[in-house]
C-alpha cells in the first residue's frame, strides 16, 4: 500500500468506499426525502421526491406535543451530560491517578452497569418514581441517564487521563499546590479535549434513549422527542403522519450530523480508547 499504488488499485478502493458510504447514507437520505415530499406524493414510493415542500417542517412546529418534547429532550440531555461528565471526570481522575481503597470495586460496578439490561429497571423505577413523585419529571429521567452514562464517561475519561503528562502535576505539587489545586489548575485544562469528547458521547447516548423515556414519562411535562415521534398521529386527525414523523426525525438527526462532521476524529478516538457503548 505505497504512495505509488497503481491507478486501478485506487479505483478499486474508491468503489469499496463508495459502497460503504452508500450503506451508511441511504436510510438517512430516505427519511430526508420523505420529509420534503408533499402530502399527495408521500406515498408514491419514489426514493427522490417528485415535488418538494417545507410544509412538513412548518407543520411539526405547530404540534405542541413536539415543541415541548424537543425542549425536554434538549434540556434533559444537556443537564444529564453536564452532571455525568463532571462526576465522571472526578471518578476517572481518581481511578487513573490516585491510590485508594475501593477503586477496583468502582471499576467493577461501572462495568456491571455497562452490561445491565435497562428493561430490568423499568418496572421497579416506574413504581419507585411514582411513589416519590419523580415520575414524569425531568429529574426522573436525568437520574437513570446519568447512571448509564457514567460507565461510558469513566472509561473514556480514564483512558484519556492516562495519556496526560503527569510530570506537570508533580511540578505543581512541588511548587506547593495541594492535590486538589493540582487537579484544578494543571490537569483540568490538559484534560479538556478528553472531557469534551466524552461529553459528545454522553450527549448522543442521552439523546438516543427511548426505553426510559417511554416508560418514565406520560405527559408533555417531560416526554422527550423520541417518544413524541413514536406517538405522532399527524398535525390534524385527517393528516398522514408520515411527513411529520420524517421531518421530526430529520431534526433529531441534525445534532448528530454536526457532531460527526466536526468531531469525527475525537469520536473515533473516544470510542476506541475506552468506550463501552454510546
Amino acid at each position, binding site marked *: 500500500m505505497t504512495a505509488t499504488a497503481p491507478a486501478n488499485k485506487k479505483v478499486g478502493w474508491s468503489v469499496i468506499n463508495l459502497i460503504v458510504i452508500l450503506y451508511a447514507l441511504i*436510510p438517512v437520505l430516505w427519511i430526508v426525502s420523505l420529509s420534503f415530499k408533499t402530502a399527495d406524493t408521500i*406515498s408514491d414510493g419514489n426514493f427522490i421526491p417528485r415535488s418538494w415542500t417545507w410544509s412538513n417542517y412548518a407543520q411539526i412546529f405547530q404540534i405542541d406535543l413536539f415543541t415541548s418534547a424537543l425542549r425536554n429532550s434538549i434540556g434533559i440531555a444537556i443537564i444529564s451530560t453536564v452532571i455525568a461528565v463532571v462526576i465522571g471526570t472526578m471518578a476517572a481522575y481518581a481511578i487513573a491517578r*490516585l*491510590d485508594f481503597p475501593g477503586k477496583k470495586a468502582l471499576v467493577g460496578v461501572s462495568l456491571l452497569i455497562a452490561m445491565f439490561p435497562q428493561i430490568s429497571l423499568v418496572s421497579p423505577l416506574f413504581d*419507585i418514581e411514582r411513589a416519590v413523585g419523580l415520575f414524569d419529571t425531568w429529574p426522573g429521567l436525568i437520574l437513570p441517564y446519568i447512571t448509564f452514562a*457514567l460507565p461510558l464517561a469513566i472509561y473514556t475519561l480514564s483512558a484519556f487521563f492516562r495519556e496526560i503528562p503527569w510530570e506537570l502535576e508533580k511540578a505543581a505539587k512541588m511548587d506547593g499546590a495541594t*492535590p486538589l489545586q493540582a487537579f484544578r489548575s494543571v490537569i483540568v485544562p490538559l484534560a479538556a479535549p478528553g472531557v469534551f469528547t466524552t461529553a459528545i458521547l454522553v450527549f448522543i447516548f442521552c439523546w438516543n434513549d427511548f426505553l426510559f423515556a417511554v416508560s418514565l414519562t406520560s405527559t408533555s411535562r417531560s416526554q422527550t422527542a423520541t417518544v413524541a415521534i413514536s406517538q405522532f398521529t399527524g398535525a390534524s386527525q385527517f393528516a398522514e403522519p408520515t411527513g411529520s414523523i420524517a421531518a421530526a426525525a430529520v431534526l433529531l438527526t441534525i445534532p448528530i450530523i454536526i457532531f*460527526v462532521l466536526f468531531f469525527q476524529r475525537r469520536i473515533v478516538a473516544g470510542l476506541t480508547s475506552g468506550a463501552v457503548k454510546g
Partner: protein
Amino acid sequence: MTLDSGALAEATTKEPPAHRAGKIPLSEGKKAERRLGLWLCAPAAIIMVAVTAYPIIYAIWLSLQRYDLRFPAEREFAGLSNYGAVLSSGYWWQAFLITVIITVVSVAIEFVLGLALALVMHRTIVGRGLTRTVVLIPYGIVTVVAAFSWQFAWTPDKGYLAAMLSDGSAPLTGQTSAIAIIILAEVWKTTPFMALLLMAGLALVPDDLLKAAQVDGAGPWQRLTQIILPMMKPAILVALLFRTLDAFRVFDNIYILTQGSNGTGSVSMLGYDNLFKAFNLGIGSAISVLIFIAVALIALLFIKLFGASAPGSEPAGKR
C-alpha cells in the same frame, strides 16, 4: 474494555513497591490522597448504586408479590408464583427464542461486516477521513429515527424497498420477514460501532509481521486467519461481549417496526407490555429479574471465554 494494554502495563510498573508491603504507616500525603480518591469517586458510586442496585433488589421483592396496578388492594405476597406463571407461559419462551435469534444472527452478521468495514477503514488509500466520518452516522443516529426510516421503506406502496417486492407483499406483517427487517435495522445501526472496536484491535497488528508473512508466501486469507484474527482476539471478544449484551436488550427497533405483533416481540418488549398494557407489576418484575439473570449468564459465559483478559480482571492490573 480499554484496549490499550500499553498504558495498562505502564500503570502497573509505575506503582511503587512500598504500597505492596502495606505495613508501613501511611504518610500524611498518602492519607490525603486516599481521602481525595474516595471523595472524588463517591458521587459516581452513590448514583450508580442507588439507581441500579436498589431498584433491582426492589424488583426481586416486587416479583414475589401479586401486584396488579388495576387492583392495588389485592396486593399480597405470592412466593414464586409469578416466576411459575412466566416460565410456564408460551409468551415468555416465544419472546426468549426471538430475542436469542435476533441476538445471534445480528451479532454474527455484524462481526463479519464489521471486520470487513474495519479492514476497509484501516487499509483504504483513498477517502479515509470521509469513510470514517460517514460510518459514524449510523452509530450516532437516534435508533427510533432509523427504525422509522426502515419502517417506511418496507411499507407497501410508500417505501422504496417495498416497491422492489412483488405486489401485495407486506414484509412487516409476516413473522420471518419482520424479524429479518428487525435484524437488518440492528445490523445497519451497530456495525460501525463493531467496526471501530475491531479497528482498534487491527491497529495493534504490526505491519512488519504481515509483510514478513507475505514474503514467506502467505496469501491474504492465510494472513487474516493465521495472524490478524489471533492477534485481535482481545478486541474481538470485547466487541462481541458488548454487542451481544446490547442486542439482547433489543427494544427500540421492535417497538417502532412491529410493536411486537405477529410473534416478533423480544423479552424487553414483553416486560414493557406487561407493565404498560397488562399493568401487572408483579409479573413485569419477575420478567425483569429473569432478563437480568439471562444477561448475567451471558456475561459469565463470555468472561469464562476471555480467561485472563476479561475486562473484570483488568482493574487489578490498572491499580
